[in-house]
C-alpha cells in the first residue's frame, strides 16, 4: 500500500522534514489525494523502540550533527556544540515534545501593533490573525486529541502539579490547571490513555502522547499517496532558469546522492536546518540563498524566553512520576507592560531524571552547593518558563566558515543575544516561580538557566510584504512560487505558547491551500 515514487516523477510534492510541520502536511496532502515524497534525515523509531533512559534516548533520537554557537546566551557557554535539543527521526521533535498545546492569544498575532516599537526588536504583525486561525486550531486540536478541548477531559494532576497548584493558588493565581495537552486523557485514535509513566521527552512508549511518528505518518502512508524516505539528508534544493524549484538533492544512509524531482517543494527541517538549507542552496541566480531577497532568511531566530525553577521541600515530591508537563499557570501570559516587559510567559511543570538534573540544574556547577541540591532530588519540584522573546535581526542562523557536516556542507552557526526585554521577563519569571514554590513550603529554590533550545522559531518569517519577510500568509515564499516553508521557521513572532499546536494548525491550513492551488493548476 505504501507508495513508491520515481526520482524523475516531477508531479510530486516534496516535503523535507517529517515533524509537526512536515509530517502533518504530508498526511494532510496525502488524504486529499496529492502525491507526496517526504525526505527525513533521521531514522524511523516507534514506541517499542523508545528508551526510557535519558542519555540512551538522547543518543538515539537527538540531532547531533555539527553545529556551532555564538552570542551572549548561556547555552553558548554551557552547550556550545548543542544549541538545540531536537530530534532527528521520522516524526521529528513530535517524539520528544511534552504535549503542551496552547493557542496563541489574539493579541500575540499582532505583536508590533500591541507592543509598539521596542528598540532593537524586529517586531512585525503576522499577516493572519486569531479569527482566521480559529477553525485550523479546531482541526489541530481534534487531530492531536488535546485535553480540555472538544470532549477530552483534563489529565489528572501528578505530585509535581499538586505542588505547583498549591503555591500558585496561594499567590493568588487563577489560571492554574493540568493544561491543554496532546496526551490522551481517555483512549482515543486507537491509542491508550496516559499511564503516568514519565519520560514524555524520551518518546511515549504507550503512544498516549500524539506524535506524527505513529499517527500522521502511517495514516498518510496508508492512503498510498505518501512515500517517506528515512535517513535521507537533503543537501540542496535546485531550481530552473525561470527560478522555480525543481527538486532536491539528498544523501541516503550509505551516502549515495539522489535527486528527487518535484512540482512543489516544502521545507520543514526546523528553524535551524530550514534556513541553512536555503542558504546552502545559493546559486548564480540566488547568490544569497533561495527565497532571500528580503535578506531575512536565517534572521529573527527565536527560542522563547526559557529557564526553569526547581524548589526543594521538606518531604518527598517525586516529581518524575507521571506526565512531565501536565501543569500550567497562565496568569502571566497576559499583555501587561507594567511588569517591565512586553509579551507574557507561561509556567509549566517540568521534571528531569537524576542524570539530566545533574547535567542541567546548574551547568558547570560543582562542589557542595551543587551536590546538596542533588541530594534533595527526591524532594524537588520543577517548573519551566516559556515566554515570548523578541525577534532580533542579528539573532540568526548563518553558515559556518570553518565547521562542516559529514557531507562537507557548512554547518549552521546559531547566534543569539538576549534582548533586554527577554532578560527582564526571565528575571520576573524566576521571581514568580520561586515565590510559588516558597508559598508551597520550599526551603530552597534554584533559578536554572535555559536548556538547549527546543522551541526554534522565526528564521523564515511570515510577512504580508516581500521586503521584510520570507513567506506569505500561506507559508509560500515570496520569491519562488512553488517553494513553501512548513515549520516553525515561519513564525513572525513567537508568542508565549509552546509552538507545536500552531505549527500543526498552519500545516493543516497550508495543505488546504496547496491542494487547492494544485487543482487550479496554479502550482
Amino acid at each position, binding site marked *: 500500500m505504501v507508495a513508491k515514487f520515481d526520482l524523475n516523477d516531477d508531479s510530486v510534492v516534496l516535503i523535507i522534514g517529517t515533524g509537526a510541520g512536515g509530517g502533518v502536511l504530508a498526511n494532510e496532502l496525502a488524504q486529499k489525494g496529492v502525491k507526496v515524497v517526504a525526505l527525513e534525515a533521521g531514522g524511523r523509531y516507534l514506541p517499542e523502540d523508545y528508551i526510557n533512559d535519558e542519555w540512551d534516548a538522547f543518543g538515539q533520537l537527538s540531532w547531533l550533527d555539527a553545529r556551532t554557537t555564538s552570542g551572549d546566551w548561556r547555552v553558548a557557554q554551557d552547550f556550545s556544540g548543542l544549541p538545540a535539543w531536537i530530534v532527528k527521526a521520522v516524526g521529528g521533535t513530535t517524539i520528544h515534545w511534552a504535549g503542551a498545546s496552547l493557542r496563541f492569544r489574539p493579541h500575540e498575532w499582532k505583536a508590533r501593533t500591541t507592543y509598539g516599537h521596542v528598540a532593537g526588536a524586529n517586531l512585525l504583525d503576522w499577516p493572519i490573525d486569531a479569527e482566521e486561525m480559529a477553525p485550523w486550531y479546531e482541526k489541530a486540536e481534534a487531530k492531536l486529541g488535546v485535553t480540555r478541548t472538544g470532549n477530552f477531559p483534563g489529565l489528572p494532576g*501528578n505530585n509535581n502539579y499538586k505542588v505547583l497548584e498549591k503555591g500558585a493558588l496561594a499567590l493568588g493565581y487563577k489560571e492554574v490547571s493540568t493544561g491543554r495537552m496532546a496526551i490522551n486523557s481517555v483512549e482515543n485514535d486507537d491509542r491508550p490513555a496516559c499511564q503516568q*509513566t514519565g519520560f514524555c521527552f524520551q518518546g511515549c512508549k504507550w503512544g498516549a502522547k500524539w506524535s506524527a511518528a505513529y499517527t500522521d505518518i502511517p495514516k498518510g502512508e496508508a492512503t498510498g499517496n505518501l512515500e517517506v524516505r528515512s535517513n535521507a539528508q537533503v543537501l540542496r534544493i535546485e531550481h530552473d532558469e525561470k527560478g522555480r524549484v525543481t527538486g532536491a538533492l539528498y544523501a541516503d544512509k550509505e551516502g549515495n546522492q539522489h535527486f528527487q524531482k518535484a512540482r512543489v517543494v516544502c521545507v520543514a527541517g526546523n528553524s535551524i536546518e530550514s534556513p541553512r538549507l536555503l542558504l546552502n542552496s545559493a546559486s548564480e541566480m540566488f547568490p544569497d540563498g533561495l527565497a532571500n531577497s528580503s535578506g531575512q532568511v536565517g534572521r529573527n531566530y527565536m527560542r522563547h524566553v526559557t529557564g526553569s525553577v526547581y524548589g526543594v521541600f521538606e518531604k*518527598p515530591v517525586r516529581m518524575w512520576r507521571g506526565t512531565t508537563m501536565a501543569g500550567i499557570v497562565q496568569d502571566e501570559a497576559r499583555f501587561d507592560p507594567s511588569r517591565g516587559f512586553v509579551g507574557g510567559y507561561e509556567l509549566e511543570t517540568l521534571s528531569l531524571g537524576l542524570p539530566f538534573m545533574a547535567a542541567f540544574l546548574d551547568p558547570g556547577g560543582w562542589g557542595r552547593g551543587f551536590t546538596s541540591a542533588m541530594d534533595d532530588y527526591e524532594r524537588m519540584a520543577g517548573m519551566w518558563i516559556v515566554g515570548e522573546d523578541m525577534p532580533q535581526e542579528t539573532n540568526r542562523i548563518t553558515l559556518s566558515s570553518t565547521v562542516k557536516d559529514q557531507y562537507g556542507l557548512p554547518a549552521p552557526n546559531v547566534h543569539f543575544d538576549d534582548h533586554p526585554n527577554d532578560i527582564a521577563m526571565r528575571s520576573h519569571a524566576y521571581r514568580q516561580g520561586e515565590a510559588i514554590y516558597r508559598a508551597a513550603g520550599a526551603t530552597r529554590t534554584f533559578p536554572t538557566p535555559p536548556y538547549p533550545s527546543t522551541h526554534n522559531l522565526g528564521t523564515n518569517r511570515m510577512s504580508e510584504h516581500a521586503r521584510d519577510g520570507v513567506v506569505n500568509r500561506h507559508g509560500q515564499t515570496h520569491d519562488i512560487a512553488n517553494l513553501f516553508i512548513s515549520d516553525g521557521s515561519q513564525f513572525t513572532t513567537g508568542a508565549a505558547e509552546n509552538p507545536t499546536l500552531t505549527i500543526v494548525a498552519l500545516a493543516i491550513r497550508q495543505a488546504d491551500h496547496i491542494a487547492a492551488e494544485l487543482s487550479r493548476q496554479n502550482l
Partner: protein
Amino acid sequence: MTTKPNWRGMTRRQLIARSFAAGTTLIVGAGFVAAPNAAWAYEAAALKPETLATLIRMARDIYPHDHIGDAFYVTAVKGYDTAETAAEIEAGIAALNAAAQGAGHASYLDAAWEDDRVALLRGMEKSAFFQKIRGGLVTGLYNQKELWPLFGYEGESFSQGGYIDRGFDDIDWL
C-alpha cells in the same frame, strides 16, 4: 565493589599489609587502590596507584555525596586508567599536587580539609584537565543506574505499567 576477582576475600589487615602511603581515605598499594574497609579494591592498569587515589579524591571533592560510597567514584573515573589517557591524567594530577605543595601541603591527598582541597580545585577550575574530569563525572557518576536508588530516583516505570496505580499523585503533606 571488587573489580578484580583476586581481591575478593582479602581482609583489611591483608590489604594494609600490602600497602604504603595509606593516608586516611584510601589504601594505596603496589598497583592497587582499595577502600580502608576492604569493601572494594581496584587494580590500576596504566595510572600510578597514587594518581588514581588522587583522582578518586578529586572526583569526590568535585561532587561530594557523603551517602555515596567511593566505589561509585572509582567507577566514574576508571575509564581514564588507560594507556591512551594516562599521560594526560598524570600531568593533570601532577599539576594539582604542585598547586597543593605551593599551598603548603605535601600533596593534594595530604590536604586534610575538604575546604583546602576545594580551594586548590577552584584555582584550576578553568583548566582543560579540571573541566574534563568534572564534565566526565556528570555522566560517569550520575548515570550509574546502581546509584539512582540512593537518591530516591526510580528510573523507568514502563515495565511496571507507569505510576498510574503506583503513586503518581500520592503526595500527602501539602
